[in-house]
């Protein structure tokens, strides 16, 4: 009969909570930078410049059709061969941004293409500058349209970030792995880790719902 022993977990809960904070920080950074990459990628893809579009297509298809684990191995172990050496934490962030950028590019492209042409022409007729049209007529409505898919992609990114523990970058999963190496209470540790990730996922979806209410509702519906 298996004897459960949660003492190592609750005795070191501070380590796990600190790990959870590192995962939150890493995910938030990856979301913000990933959003920038996604917007740039989507703009490049909807631009008329053909080589640029082709380049973004290759990036999106390669990333979406290979596992994140292989991508992070390639970035962490492979790039030093090309003279680019990254610390585990930097490699983790780069890999997450590159990964979420590809999915985000596709999502935001769909959002931009959902804006009717007439709306852009209306903006022009009102005498808005190209920058104003891009911001108020294209990007904000586009983001509003694709907000649910973008944020569920972000939550998926937070869950995927647990994989960065394999290159011993600092996060919740690696805090658990360290604890496991010291105490061998494996099942108990991973049970609590899983619960913590679940709580983080709920936390992020609450946060995204609040952001949506604050920034992405139509004035009429306030």
């Amino acid at each position, binding site marked *: 009969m298996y004897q459960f022993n949660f003492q190592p977990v609750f005795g070191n809960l501070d380590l796990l909570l600190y790990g959870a904070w590192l995962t939150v920080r890493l995910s938030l950074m990856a979301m913000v930078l990933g959003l920038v990459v996604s917007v740039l990628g989507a703009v490049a893809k909807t631009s008329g410049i053909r080589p640029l579009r082709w380049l973004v297509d290759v990036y999106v298809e390669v990333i979406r059709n290979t596992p994140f684990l292989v991508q992070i*191995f390639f970035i962490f172990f492979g790039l030093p*061969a090309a003279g680019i050496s990254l610390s585990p934490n930097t490699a983790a962030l780069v890999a997450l941004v590159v990964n979420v950028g590809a999915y985000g590019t596709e999502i935001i492209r769909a959002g931009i293409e959902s804006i009717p042409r007439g709306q852009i022409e209306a903006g022009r007729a009102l005498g808005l500058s190209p920058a104003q049209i891009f911001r108020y007529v294209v990007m904000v409505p586009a983001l509003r349209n694709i907000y649910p898919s973008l944020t569920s992609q972000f939550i998926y990114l937070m*869950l995927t970030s647990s994989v960065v523990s394999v290159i011993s970058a600092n996060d919740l999963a690696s805090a658990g792995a360290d604890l496991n190496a010291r105490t061998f209470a494996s099942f108990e540790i991973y*049970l609590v880790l899983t619960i913590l990730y679940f709580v983080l996922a709920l936390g992020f979806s609450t946060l995204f719902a609040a952001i949506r209410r604050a920034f992405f509702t139509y004035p009429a519906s306030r």
Partner: protein
Amino acid sequence: MIREFSSADILFIVSAVRWTLILSVIAFLGGAIGGLAVALARTAQGRLRRRIAAGFIQVFQGTPLLMQLFLVYFGLAVLGLPIDPLLAAAVALTLHASAYLGEIWRGAIEAVPPGQTEAAVALSLSYRDRMRHVVLPQAMRLATAPTVGFLVQLIKGTSLASIIGFTELTRAGQIINNATFKPFLVFGTVAALYFVLCWPLSLLARHMEARMRLAITR
């Protein structure tokens, strides 16, 4: 000892593709059975069954696949079973696939117009016949594109089985990299092989989705 990267190494990596495929097939078949059960429970009359199915989906979609793999792997020891990476990976990926397919298929079942069910009830078809001959065939048409899309996610997901020590494509790459230390070449090859498996499926899913959209808007 670091040795040269040879054609035997490439062969070793390429032949590991079969374990990735075997694991994907097991998880997909298991997930199809589990997913159907989850989708039917999620759309059932009984409130308790709906709640349980919803909870199952939420837990498996709200936690990392890596944690699910570890939990099943160490959970085998808790149950007094021998720890076997293939068994653990197969079970964890099956549960994972059941939740995702269950959610996809729930959507497809709910998208079948309610009049269809009402007509079947009026014809006094049993629940079984109603599902088998009326609802599911129509739901299946809607579900194929996203199901193929999920298959890509599942194949990529099998790479995580390498972390609990199952030698599939990614782990074969790690083994060769440890011996030859040619990470750029090794992981480039591994990535290319995954791409060859996944890209055609992605294109197929996109193609089916476009056709479906035409069929609906027509």
